[in-house]
């Protein structure tokens, strides 16, 4: 009898402890993610802390607000582990194709807008959350160009949640020494006129290598010139009367755009064709100006942590892109979004984590700041959580400039063969700028090529 009582006691103890243990045990879900690196935390990705935390790298403070941590707070029963493959941009397409071909079981994949159509067409990704994305876009005032950019054949495959803007960065002291103001060079013609003087001043008085550094090797320069093309009334593709896509660049606007770059080079701009330097050369004061993007802003601010906003904006000026006389600023509005593969083991959780981020301004703001990017909706541009933090990095006058660029942007045509079409135009650009071919001729052959691609 004693034995029996003892056994019961032990049994109940074990059961009790087990139950307590069970109650405390969380459901552990591992999310497998593929994304590009970003400056804030190149080894993590911004979704949340990764792995078991045994790395030497310190976990940044802002992870408190990362989507995964916020999601866990909202869902106390769930613990999320992240397994993130961080792939550089230069290699990203290749690895995307690999993921598609091998039907890899990722839960979330970061996708560039320009590849949405092609990748949607593979059937690897699912639009199953389309309605929720649409609702979100309507509620939050996602700019129309980003709605179109995230849509393929009527389905939204995600939300283009971040974008960047092209930007010309300027050392104001050189500019002023050459006798010009920011207003002077903010028009396309003004920059062209001022460039010889600025180059001369930069070289002679400031011992610099040149006036304007124009990157010509990085992946993103391929559509560098499109802002001008759109301002002038051209486009990459447009629909004809029959509703078919046709090239929209083989016209005066296209010719003027390509000749403008050529003129810039002839006026002293240095084409940068080795590696991608981002702002490195500019920050070394090797050039008076550089044509980069809003994403480079942290390179400026982190170089001068002690300077106030006023001091910084006095030193460095920024223009989204130059505007032709009588035209309106129109930038190319690309962006990145999260897509969910059909093979994803946890699509619902993956979706909820992303929606957590999109609905939580605090969390969303952190993503944008860490990735050095701009928001894609009215709601986020106006968010105090974002604005107050980001204007530390992007002081007010810069911020306004960027918002105008983004809101008035043009999205890329949503076509599966887009990458080939883009390449045809880029080849034409190079032919004109470094190949000595006339713009008319180069665009003619590019248009021919594009027509052939469109015919399939």
């Amino acid at each position, binding site marked *: 009898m004693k034995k029996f009582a003892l056994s019961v006691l032990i049994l109940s103890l074990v059961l009790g402890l087990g139950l307590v243990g069970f109650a405390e045990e969380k459901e552990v879900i591992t999310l497998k993610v*593929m994304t*590009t*690196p*970003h*400056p804030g935390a*190149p*080894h993590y990705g911004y979704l949340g802390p990764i792995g078991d935390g045994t*790395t*030497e790298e310190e976990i940044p403070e802002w992870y408190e607000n990362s989507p995964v941590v916020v999601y866990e707070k909202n869902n106390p029963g769930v613990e999320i582990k992240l*397994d*993130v*493959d*961080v*792939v*550089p*941009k*230069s*290699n990203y397409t*290749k*690895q995307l194709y*690999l*993921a598609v*071909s*091998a039907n*890899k079981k990722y839960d979330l994949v970061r996708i560039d807008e320009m590849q949405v159509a092609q990748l949607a067409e593979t059937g690897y990704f699912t639009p199953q959350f389309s309605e929720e994305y649409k609702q979100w876009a309507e509620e939050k005032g996602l700019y129309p160009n980003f709605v179109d950019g995230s849509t393929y054949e009527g389905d939204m495959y995600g939300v283009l949640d971040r974008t960047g803007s092209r930007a010309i960065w300027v050392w104001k002291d050189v500019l002023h020494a050459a006798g010009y103001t920011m207003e002077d060079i903010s028009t396309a013609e003004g920059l062209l006129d001022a460039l010889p003087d600025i180059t001369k001043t930069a070289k002679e008085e400031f011992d610099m290598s040149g006036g304007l550094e124009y990157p010509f090797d*990085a992946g993103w320069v391929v559509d560098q010139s499109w802002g001008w093309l759109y301002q002038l009334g051209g486009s990459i593709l447009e629909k004809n009367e029959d509703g078919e896509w046709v090239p929209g660049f083989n016209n005066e606007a296209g010719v003027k755009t390509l000749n403008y770059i050529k003129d810039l080079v002839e006026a002293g701009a240095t084409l940068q064709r080795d*590696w*991608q*330097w*981002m702002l*490195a050369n500019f920050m070394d004061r090797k050039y008076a100006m550089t044509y980069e993007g809003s*994403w*480079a802003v942290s390179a400026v601010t982190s170089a001068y942590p002690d300077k106030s906003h006023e001091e910084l904006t006095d030193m460095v000026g920024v223009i989204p892109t130059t505007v032709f006389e009588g035209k309106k600023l129109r930038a190319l509005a690309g962006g990145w979004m999260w897509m969910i593969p059909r093979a994803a083991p946890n699509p619902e959780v993956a979706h909820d984590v992303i929606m957590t981020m999109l609905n939580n301004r605090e969390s969303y703001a952190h993503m944008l700041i860490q990735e050095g990017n701009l928001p894609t909706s009215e709601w986020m541009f106006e968010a105090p959580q974002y604005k107050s933090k980001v204007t530390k990095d992007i002081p007010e006058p810069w911020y306004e400039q960027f918002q105008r660029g983004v809101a008035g942007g043009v999205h890329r045509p949503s076509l599966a063969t887009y990458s080939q079409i883009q390449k045809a135009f880029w080849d034409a650009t190079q032919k004109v700028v470094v190949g000595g071919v006339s713009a008319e001729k180069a665009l003619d052959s590019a248009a021919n090529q594009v027509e052939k691609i469109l015919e399939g």
Partner: protein
Amino acid sequence: MTEKRVRIFILVAWGMFTLLPIYWVMDISFQKEISFPPQLAPLNPSLTHYTSLLNERLIVTGLLNSILVSVVAALLSVIITTMAGYAFSRLQFKGKKLLFVGLLMAFLLPPNLNIVPIFSLFSELGILGSRYGMVFLYQLLVTPLNIFLFMNYFNTVEDAIVESAILDGAGVFQRYYRIFIPLAKPALVAGFIFAFRFSWSEYVYATTMVTENSKILFTAALERAIFSGQYTVNFGYMASGAMFLALPVVVILLFGQKYLELGLQLGGVD
């Protein structure tokens, strides 16, 4: 005398041309802070790029995976190519000439040519992106070369030894592992090193066929680490990583040069 000087001068000049890119990479890898243009010599050599490279989790995974894949691939290669080399060298069989010509063809066709069908076949087999797949794939790079190596080596074994073994009643299999394998120790080392080197430094397949962090190979991990700054290049990683890739070369030059040239008689680059 002057003619001789000219000849030596040309050799020295070619030697300098040969060493230039490697020296330049080494120079950059040892500089504490890289600024361009770099100093012509690392006057204050520092290992900081090496240590920070080795602190990258991805690089460590890549190193371990590459060591694993290269060692397994090299072992497998030595096993299967000694067998085939033995057959070609010592056994008579129908279709020998035909198979030999096929082997030569396989050897002469650059392995990188087949990347599209292999990519597709691996996808069909469900081994795209797996390390096992890479172990087998890497056999392609070195199998013909190693078969030639062992065939030539086994040809040099004296017939008397083989005949006395036959008199002792040793069969085909016993002769293979009792006589030829033990006698071929130096060639085994050479074959192993060749195979290891090819897999260790392979770049096109490694960056095209493997995507997951946990399975990544060193060359691909290095590429990721170099470009992990999104829009910038980490030259320190590039230089120090290249030195890691060059390590097996040093080993070969120190220990395996003699056999290398034996294999070279029959050619082979990747």
